[in-house]
């Protein structure tokens, strides 16, 4: 049994201490995980069926239009119109969100490094400008994202990067321990 196994397997009352700086890329991914903890993504099969229905509908409209003697190219034009709108909305969303992350980044410039202590009682979060203590009842969801673990409390979130975990504590074991603490 190597050292990391023993740390991972421990049913511990010990606190886990981590500290990390703001990571914009990770925060972006965390935001997705945050949202998925509110509205879980639909299963693949369901999404596939929905898309099949949508395209079948488009095809049906094309056929109906053709039956009335109109060119089915109208459907093509409609699709291009929707596509143009999707592109503009995507662009707007991007600028909006990058603005959002800039704002957050500015906050973190002052906040500096975040130190988090996680134990049976909850989370203690501390940085240069603030101090939060949340017990587990305040945590609505814990969600894994690529490179980190997201804690959601209401609409606020905290993302603990995997890289900040104590050496020997694998992200999965970390989340298992949290699950056990939350279940208490």
């Amino acid at each position, binding site marked *: 049994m190597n050292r990391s196994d023993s740390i991972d397997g421990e049913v511990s009352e010990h606190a886990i201490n981590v500290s990390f700086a703001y990571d914009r890329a990770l925060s972006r991914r965390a935001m997705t995980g945050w949202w998925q903890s509110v509205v879980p993504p639909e299963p693949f099969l369901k999404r596939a069926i929905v898309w099949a229905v949508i395209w079948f509908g488009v095809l049906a409209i094309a056929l109906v239009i053709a039956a009335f003697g109109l060119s089915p190219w109208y459907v093509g*034009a*409609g699709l*291009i119109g929707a596509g143009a*709108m999707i592109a503009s909305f995507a662009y707007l969303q991007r600028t*909006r969100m990058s603005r959002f992350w800039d*704002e957050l980044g500015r906050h*973190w410039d002052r906040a500096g490094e975040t130190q988090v202590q996680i134990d049976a009682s909850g989370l203690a979060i501390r940085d240069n400008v603030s101090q939060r203590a949340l017990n587990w009842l*305040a945590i609505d969801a814990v969600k894994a994202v690529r490179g980190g673990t997201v804690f959601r409390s209401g*609409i606020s979130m905290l993302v603990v990067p995997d890289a900040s975990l104590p050496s020997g504590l694998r992200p999965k074991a970390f989340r298992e321990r949290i699950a056990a603490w939350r279940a208490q």
Partner: protein
Amino acid sequence: MSDNNIIQLTPSFPETLDREAAYLINKKVPKRQTAVAWLGLLAVLVISTLLVGAIFPDKFGFSHIIAFLFGATFFAAYAYLETRQVLKTGIEIQKTARERSKPIVFRFTPNRFVIETANGRTDYTWDAIDEIESLSIGTGVRVGALLYPIADTDLPEALSRRDFRARIDAWRSAT
């Protein structure tokens, strides 16, 4: 006198303020950027119409623009409804979380803004506050992506919105 140095209140979180908070980030996008985006859309509309018209002159006429606009409107309507739904969900989960964390108390002191709830305690120095916003029926204290709304009616009696604002502005700039 301690009264001068502590403002304590129980926030009522009216939905109006939550909705304004949700739009706060939109407000921060410069108008120019939004204008550029919509002009870009218009350019895309015109160019793609001309392009398709040039490639398929026999199949694609001016009347297709109507179909094009129909498609665009259809997606815009969908996006609008979707955004509204997302917003509603956000407000909903916030409400649920607050309901569970009651009682909630906001306390403003010369050095700090403290939020005490049944499930936790948040303690901000004034340095943590990014912005103090004037809202329609209250004041918003923004920390990162979070906006703490204080409705005018939440304020202690004898404290007007202007006095409140003046006092917290003074505390904030003193640190």
